[in-house]
């Protein structure tokens, strides 16, 4: 009985070590990103690809706050909007260079996240959810009604794309090209993913998980829960801010409706459908929930119903999201393979 297992072990362990090697997956992700605009050559799908990359950023940023630190944040749409409006206003009103405006947008949405967390520090669970939702509503109303600054529902138009990368005065990479803009946003999303992945695999990941699981217990181990919650909010909201900057420069127009509170719930749905508390889950959740409505366009308004039913079914029957589904499937396949192996030898 033990013989075939011994013989098989080196092969499976080699396969396992490749599959669990993060460098392998990183290279694969980079290859897939570089191939995608070549496969999808029309501007419609390239636009969707960029939206995917932006949504991936929003989802993993939110997952860091909700899935790891366990703080029910429904204010992600506000941080997204702050990043978009701050960078755009700096560019269009003050003529600030794109990347400096980008940095300011990221910084300000991060600070907004820290402030929300500081004010809500005694709030937990549903109460924090309501407080952050309130923050999202207030931010939306400010964007809508501060007409002298944001032009309210009229919107801001003709926002330039990120400036071309130049070498010796010559533009090398133009970001008015959708493929290049996709490389920029997807590359950024990949970079954020890798950095977050490193962060959650460090003791900081353990600390945040401890806070998510039991704050009193975490404090009994010397963890300053307040400080780390503010930290989680700062990171998660500045990522949303970065997504907002890219969104503004990609769409070229800004209206407050893009940052209505429903956006918070859409991002939350991406995190839940993908699998909360894993970083890879929300990536696929974001891609699925961005692409699915587009694929369903053929059936008209029925698509909203199909979309809603699909999300509900996932939450009801697969609370761990796509990641849990994948793990269960992998375990089943392994069992079948092992069963076939032992049958063959007997």
């Amino acid at each position, binding site marked *: 009985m033990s013989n075939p297992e011994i013989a098989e072990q080196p092969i499976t362990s080699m396969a396992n070590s490749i599959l669990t090697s993060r460098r392998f997956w990183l290279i694969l992700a980079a290859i897939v990103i570089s191939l995608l605009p070549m496969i999808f050559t029309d501007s419609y799908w390239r636009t969707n690809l960029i939206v995917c990359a932006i949504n991936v950023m929003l989802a993993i940023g939110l997952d860091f706050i909700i899935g790891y630190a366990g703080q029910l944040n429904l204010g992600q749409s506000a941080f997204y909007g702050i990043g978009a409006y701050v960078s755009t206003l700096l560019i269009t009103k003050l003529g600030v260079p794109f990347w400096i405006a980008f940095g300011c947008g990221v910084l300000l949405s991060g600070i907004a996240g820290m402030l929300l967390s500081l004010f809500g520090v005694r709030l937990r669970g549903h109460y924090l959810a309501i407080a952050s939702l309130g923050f999202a509503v207030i931010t939306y109303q400010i964007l809508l009604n501060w007409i002298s600054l944001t032009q309210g529902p009229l919107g801001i138009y003709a926002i330039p794309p990120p400036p071309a990368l130049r070498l010796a005065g010559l533009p090398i990479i133009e970001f008015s090209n959708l493929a290049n803009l996709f490389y920029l946003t997807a590359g950024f999303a990949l970079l954020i993913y890798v*950095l977050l992945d*490193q*962060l959650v*695999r*460090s*003791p*900081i990941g*353990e*600390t945040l*998980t*401890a806070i998510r*699981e*039991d704050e*009193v*217990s*975490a*404090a*009994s*181990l*010397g*963890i*300053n*829960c307040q400080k780390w919650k503010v930290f989680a909010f700062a990171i998660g909201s500045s990522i949303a801010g970065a997504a907002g900057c890219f969104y503004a420069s990609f769409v070229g127009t800004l209206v407050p409706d893009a940052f209505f509170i429903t956006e918070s719930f859409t991002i939350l749905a991406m995190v839940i459908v993908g699998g909360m508390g894993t970083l890879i889950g929300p990536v696929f959740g974001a891609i699925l929930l961005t692409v699915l409505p587009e694929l369903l366009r053929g059936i008209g308004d029925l698509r909203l119903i199909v979309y809603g039913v699909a999300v509900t079914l996932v939450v009801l029957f697969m609370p761990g999201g796509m990641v849990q589904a994948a793990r269960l499937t992998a375990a089943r396949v392994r069992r079948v393979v092992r069963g076939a192996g032992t049958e063959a030898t007997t």
Partner: protein
Amino acid sequence: MTADTLSTKNSPYPSTDAAVLFRAEGLHKSFGGVRAVRDISLAIPAGTVFAIIGPNGAGKSTLLNLMSGIYQPDAGSMVFDGIDLVGLPAHRRVRYGLARTFQKIRLFKQLSVIDNVVAGFHIHHDIPAWQYVLHGSAFRRDHARCRDEAEKLLAFIGLDKRAHLLAGSLSYGEQRMLEIARALATTPRLLLVDEPAAGLNAAEVETLLDRVGMLRVQGVTVVVVEHNMDLVMKVADRVLVMDYGQYLFEGSRAEVQAHPAVIAAYLGADFQ
């Protein structure tokens, strides 16, 4: 209310005693109209096992929560090795060497057994900030050291075989022992354990007693809140008896067993 004005009749040790690791004077804590802890003073000598006993609702757990910083006292003083603890939040006290377990088990149930212990190393990580994002050699050294020490702690409490199970899947007694290992990961000088024997079978209680004894030999001062008299009589150097939130008696095991007020509180006898 200051320490000077308090009566010292409850404190068996003179205030200059250098061997006292933890001293509390005149602690009060009320919840609404319920006075959970009333004028409790205690002095815990370093390197001893100090038991706090009393019937249900005597205020033992509240006293422990005051000591560990989950609650702040309404009045009174607490000094741990020269450090004034009043006003200090729970997480800061851990850094001074004060750790605890919980009566109602509070493990991180979704984490593995070993990760629960590793989480206890929070205050001992030695990694430059940038290496949290770009894992370098200091990160790997720290990671290996934490795993190594966590395994040693698991071996100490007899859970080394279960290191990779989810904490929530352990038996009740194992979960209690894991809480102790997790608290030990903070390298405390004073360990507060709240009803460690609740729900344990006889063999597990023996292991527990043995480990508490070993900790004492290693120089860890242990405070045990318990209402299991048998256990207390086997392990404690000194015993504080509480009833209705108040000081009833403090002394050695033998003194406690012989004291009529203690017997009355436990057996309800009319000792007058």
